[in-house]
């Protein structure tokens, strides 16, 4: 019998928790631990990190026993494009202005779906940009330049 760890869901859930717990404990070494009477800044995170590691080990053990697999599908395209669209939005907000940031956001986000149609997305981008400029910039008075340099 081969141990199939790469799609063992709970094994990885346990790993994730142990990783987080260990990282928390490791980083918290730099903060004073103190004592129960005078809890230092390191006390609580170290404690939580320890608890996480214990939970992680238990969940990992469950995973090894039950061999539950990953379920559901994951669209890699959406996983990459959607966060990317946000990052581009943030980047452009500071360098190019509100309108370019929004247009790029809509295009990149829309590209995360398979049925991407350029004309339709263009129309959506246009409507959303006009609507959000009206609501957020003119209506609520958010102080962002529409296009930098203009």
């Amino acid at each position: 019998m081969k141990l199939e760890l790469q799609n063992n869901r709970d094994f990885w859930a346990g790993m994730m928790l142990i990783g987080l717990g260990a990282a928390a404990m490791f980083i918290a070494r730099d903060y004073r631990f103190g004592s129960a009477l005078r809890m230092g800044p390191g006390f609580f995170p170290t404690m939580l990190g320890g608890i996480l590691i214990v939970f992680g080990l238990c969940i990992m053990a469950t995973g090894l026993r039950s061999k539950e697999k990953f379920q559901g599908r994951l669209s890699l395209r959406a996983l990459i494009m959607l966060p990317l669209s946000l990052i581009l939005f943030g980047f452009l907000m500071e360098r190019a202005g509100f309108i370019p940031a929004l247009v790029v956001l809509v295009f990149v986000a829309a590209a995360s779906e398979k049925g991407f149609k350029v004309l339709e997305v263009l129309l959506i981008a246009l409507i959303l940009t006009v609507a959000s400029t009206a609501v957020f910039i003119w209506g609520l008075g958010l102080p962002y330049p529409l296009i930098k340099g203009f």
Partner: protein
Amino acid sequence: MELFHNLIFGFSVSLSLQNLLYCFIGCLVGTLIGVLPGIGPMATIAMLLPLTYNVPPVAALIMLAGIYYGAMYGGSTTSILVNLPGETASVITCLDGYQMARQGRAGVALTIAALGSFIAGSICTLIIALFGPPLANMALKFGAPEYFSLMLMGLVAAAVLAHGDMMKSLAMVVVGLLLGIVGSDVAYGVKRFCFGFFELTDGIGFVVIAVGLFALGEIISNLSDPEERVVFTSKVGSLYPTLADLKQSLAPILRGTALGAFFGVLPGTTPAIASFGSYIVERKVAKDPSRFGHGAIEGVAGPEAANNADAQCKFIPMLTLGIPASGVMALMLGALMIHGIQPGPTVMTQRPELFWGLIASMWVGNLMLVVLNLPLIRIWVGLLKVPYRILFPAIMVFAAIGIYSTNNTSFDVYLAAIFGILGITWRMLECSPIPMMLGFVLGPMIEENLRRALQVSDGDPTVFLTRPISLTFIIFTILLLILMVLPSVRKRRDDFTG
């Protein structure tokens, strides 16, 4: 009569023009997202939170609450008309509601659902008004050890009673506590887990984490698993129930309300559990159980009352104790904190307009929903046909602007993108982000109360067991944990929530 005095005061607050307007917007937006596929109250409340920075906290909370129960309402509309539950709470309504629609009684089902929700809402307004003040007064006497134990019980109960693997939920609460203490330490000012980013000094933004996990995460998972929506609209028919219909519905509505109110104050239970419970009860007490599933009006009346009662009573622990009993309530607590209000029993004495105004607004909002929705049903049904590929870019725009406008910094937007990826990873691992959110909100408070409790007791950890109220909470916490490990209870819980 202090109760009536307080309620009248509440109504005077909630009936002011501004608050009425925000209540209306909340109900409208709530119904909208209840009807629309693929966007829930969590994501919406998180995204709209930044828009409320400049309005008074009462108005903000009134609107956010409106979104919450409005969504519940919109969800039942689509359950009845097209057999698609807009929210998980209305899954049960599909069973008999849709059958009624197929028999040409959609209008009656909608009216009964509306009436049931309204009656449940009215009763729960009274329940909150009755039980809120004594609860808050009791909690005012709590010291740090009591608070710590209470929060511990709240978090454990939320994790244990929630749907999904109990151990993972508990672990996710701890992850949330850890994320919650990122930033300057309250007592010493030490910057913890900031990795050199000054933007993290004040902690991870509440909106950042909520929008990242719930809006972005939701869209990624919806796009990964596209749902085929085939919409068959039934004829709405007459909206007016007959006298017999009303008679048949009254008892189920009352039973549903009682059940919903009970489940409502328990942390971790979702409105779906209350409505499911009500459906089971109605089928049990019915003279002819075989009618259920074939358009029994009790199967609409009971569950609809139950889920509304549950949603509303979730506000009791949030407003009086500062304990979030569900993900949405964690967002509400976050909204309070963003407005500079320390949640807890002092809210009622220091901000009475907030407490009573919000409660009264729920009654007003429920009334608005009845008046607003029945005539507008055709518009809502039309919205069902909006394809997701048009919807999600709009959600992204709202999310992005919402996050950016909180602190006017791109850093928050990048961080939200990371949380979106984290959220989808957690979903794949079946680690629910909701318990994490509860921990995140309570993180700093738990640490502070733990620190103070141990200071009072000279570092003796038995302080939690020697003070009677604290001991009670600890015993309940342990009982909950033991109960859930028992195989028989565990199995029944899985049947019930799964």
